[in-house]
């Protein structure tokens, strides 16, 4: 038997209830712990093996072993997390917080600190 206006109750309730959405910049967004926002590197632990660069599906990472730099083009990165899977030292992590918009495609360069020279005994 068809019903007439079964939605009226929901609509009346909606009139007097708060919106489901939050007013974003005013109230900051809360991301879950596992949210894939961007790739972070603990560059001092990096051994410059270049596995992340070779396996990155959009080829966003470049590793320069001679110069000791690890570079990521954050605008090319698709946050798939494959680099964190292949990293042998597990120094790559993917953490919440999305890439902010920009007007030009800048690369983020990380320099590996020079190893401290051991003092001769």
């Amino acid at each position: 038997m068809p019903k007439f206006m079964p939605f009226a109750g929901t609509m009346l309730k909606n009139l007097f209830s708060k919106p489901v959405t939050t007013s974003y910049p005013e109230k900051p967004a809360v991301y879950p712990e596992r949210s894939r926002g961007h790739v972070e590197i603990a560059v001092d632990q990096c051994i410059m093996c270049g596995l992340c660069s070779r396996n990155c599906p959009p080829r966003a990472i470049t590793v320069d072993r001679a110069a000791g730099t690890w570079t990521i083009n954050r605008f090319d990165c698709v946050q798939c997390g494959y680099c964190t899977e292949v990293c042998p030292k597990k120094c790559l992590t993917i953490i919440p917080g999305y890439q902010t918009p920009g007007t030009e495609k800048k690369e983020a360069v990380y320099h590996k600190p020079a190893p401290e020279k051991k003092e001769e005994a």
Partner: protein
Amino acid sequence: MASKKSVVPFGPQHPVLPEPIHLDLVLDDEKVVEAIPSIGFVHRGLESLVKKKDFKEMQYVVERTCGICSFMHGMTYCETIEHIMDVEVPVRGRYLRTIWCEMSRLHSHMLWLGLLADAFGFESLFYQCWRMREQILDMFEASTGGRVIFSVNAPGGVLKDMPSDMLHAFVEKLDGFETELHKIADIFLNDYTVLTRLKGVGILTPEEAHDLGAAGPMLRASGIARDTRKLGYAAYGDLDFDIITSDDCDSFARCDVRIREMYQSIQLIKQAVDKIPEGDIAVPVKGNPEGEYFMRVEQPRGEAIYYAKGNGTKFLERIRIRTPTFANIPALLKTLKGCQLSDVPLLILTIDPCISCTER
């Protein structure tokens, strides 16, 4: 005197349809005599990327075929590779895949219900459906880290585990979702105005559905009990469920089948959470695929077919994806014949079109 026929172009840009399909509707007065489709507006050439991406990277390409059944595309691809390489995925990994698959079905059907409400002009119902869908997306984000693209599949298993407290929290959330679904379903299945738009519109007889190769809810709404989940991929072999069908063969039947499938999905997730064993979630995969395999899987929209052929190198030789929307287009054209012009957007929606994944 023979009446003069006119041709109305419909799409690829149309307010009711965000999907780029073009139809030339041959009209006799307001009645559609014939519909001539043309597709190919968003071809991206994903399949040919196998030449540039190795078989492990390809997973991340394949799951971008579709924004709704992203998880199922990734899973099917990985299962195809696993069959070629004779890799046995741990039982827990297979259960996790099943849970994510059913969550995908829930949010896909919820999205479809919203779009259907939008197609017949029920804006507030549309927003209610999408508000509910958001709960499932939040669950996806909490468990996989992504709302649309999940990146949790890999040949050999899954990359992320769901701890037991997370699974039970999800079951609790699904209980709340089910209560809300009862209210929403009541409107779709019983509201007078909704029924006038859906009942008896777009009849597709069981013979036609079979002959035209319809798939998924479109086929099951015509009374044919065919569900690829019964083949037992992932952990479906261990779960107990019936194939949902309807004998009405019209748009209302398609809506009814999808709503009942959502209740079934919730039950399947609960069953899987009860039965999921402890253990590993993935096994390491060594070597390169050599051989070929066909894989069939039941996506929210119907049956998808994957074919992959490896030649012993890390690059696959060929990958072929056939998506359910492609299978449903002939059936759509059949239902369009003889309908009113005002029912065309609604009928296109009842096949749950995903043209972007059809064209890949």
